[in-house]
């Protein structure tokens, strides 16, 4: 028992890592299921990064739409990233994080465009940021933020 108390911060690291792994994996699976479902629903709405040029009179109205999301880096992923930082190579643990954030942001942008009755989004841009001073700093588990923004256009019929 004494050695447990002596190595208390080690125990905390272990507990947080296990928590991160279990809860984090669970949250990730659920999120992916939701993403895939919504992507199917919003498949018809086109999103392009091109500026697009339309014949005159084709575009009825346009508006700026954006979707953003913040996803937390769990402790287990952070641990893997720190170890990776020593040896170099792909930080695989962060890949799913960033992927989810971007897809979610695009989905939210599409949703916001759909609410306005738009047909497609042109000139889409995507930006990712880490919230908190530094995502890998000690004693702070950071978050990843992704924002997708573009121009939603409503086409004229005919």
């Amino acid at each position, binding site marked *: 028992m004494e050695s447990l108390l002596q190595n208390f911060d080690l125990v905390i690291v272990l507990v947080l890592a296990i928590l991160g792994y279990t809860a984090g994996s669970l949250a990730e699976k659920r999120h992916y299921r939701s993403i895939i479902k919504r992507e199917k629903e919003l498949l018809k709405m086109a999103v392009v990064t091109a500026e697009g040029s339309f014949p005159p009179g084709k575009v009825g109205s346009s508006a700026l739409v954006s979707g953003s999301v913040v996803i937390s880096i769990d402790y287990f992923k952070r641990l893997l990233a*720190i170890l*990776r930082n020593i040896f170099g190579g*792909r930080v*695989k*643990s962060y*890949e799913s994080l960033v992927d989810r954030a971007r897809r979610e942001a695009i989905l939210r942008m599409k949703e916001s465009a759909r609410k306005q009755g738009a047909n497609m989004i042109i000139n889409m841009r995507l930006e990712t940021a880490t919230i908190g001073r530094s995502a890998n700093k000690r004693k702070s588990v950071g978050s990843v933020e992704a924002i997708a923004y573009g121009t939603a256009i409503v086409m004229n019929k005919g």
Partner: protein
Amino acid sequence: MIFTPKQPEDNVNVSKSHPLIELLWLLGGLILLVGLIFFLLGVTADWAASKVPVKVETWIGQQALKEFPAIENHSLNLRLQSLIDSLPENSLLHQYKFHVFLVDSEEINALALPGGNIVVYSGLLKQVQSENELAMILAHELGHFAHRDHLRGLGRGLGVAVAAALLFGEESAASSLVSKTLLTFQAKYSQDQETAADQFGLDLLTKRYGHAGGATAFFNRIKKETGGKFPYLLASHPHPQNRIDALMRRIIGKSYPIHETIPLKNDIFTDK
């Protein structure tokens, strides 16, 4: 341009490997790396520690002493001097300027710091009952200096801690993890050092007083308060019973006589 929406089948942006497998590989690699550094440092630091000149060590000691809230004790200095006078002329210890410091604390401990500084805790002094016992303790600390133990310990542990700090950053959990794991391995190294210091202390005590009386008395007294032998596997000192046994073996092996001990004079506590 025709727009044909299609749901992609699988995700190209996420690697398929399982995170736990990756963790295993990374941790394994890290443990291997640290073990290698530790081994290399162990091989080189021992050699380096024996070569550090006394002047350099004294400078290091002055830096270390700034951290300690202790008062130099003249009576203890006198006792130490009479021990040093019993040493052979070619002893390395004559190059040191020794200072003995008394720290007011309940802890039963004495430390050898670089540069000839010995710190004695008042808790230890309260347990001591004879001049011979006190001489044994001081002579034990002199043994550490003679073997350059404090520098060896410093070299290895410090080297790895510095390497860890460079790799992970000083604030990181990883470097504290590394230093925690290494401290337990260091402990066995120290137990051998402690035994060697005991032997040196016994020899010096016998030279000073002409007999080995009082060498084991202190350990006999604290033995009653310590528990079983298990926690001592990883501690920095050997179990008191083991120390007593080793000392008795040497006393018998070298045929040291044992006479009456001199009771402790109380000028230490009245010293200002």
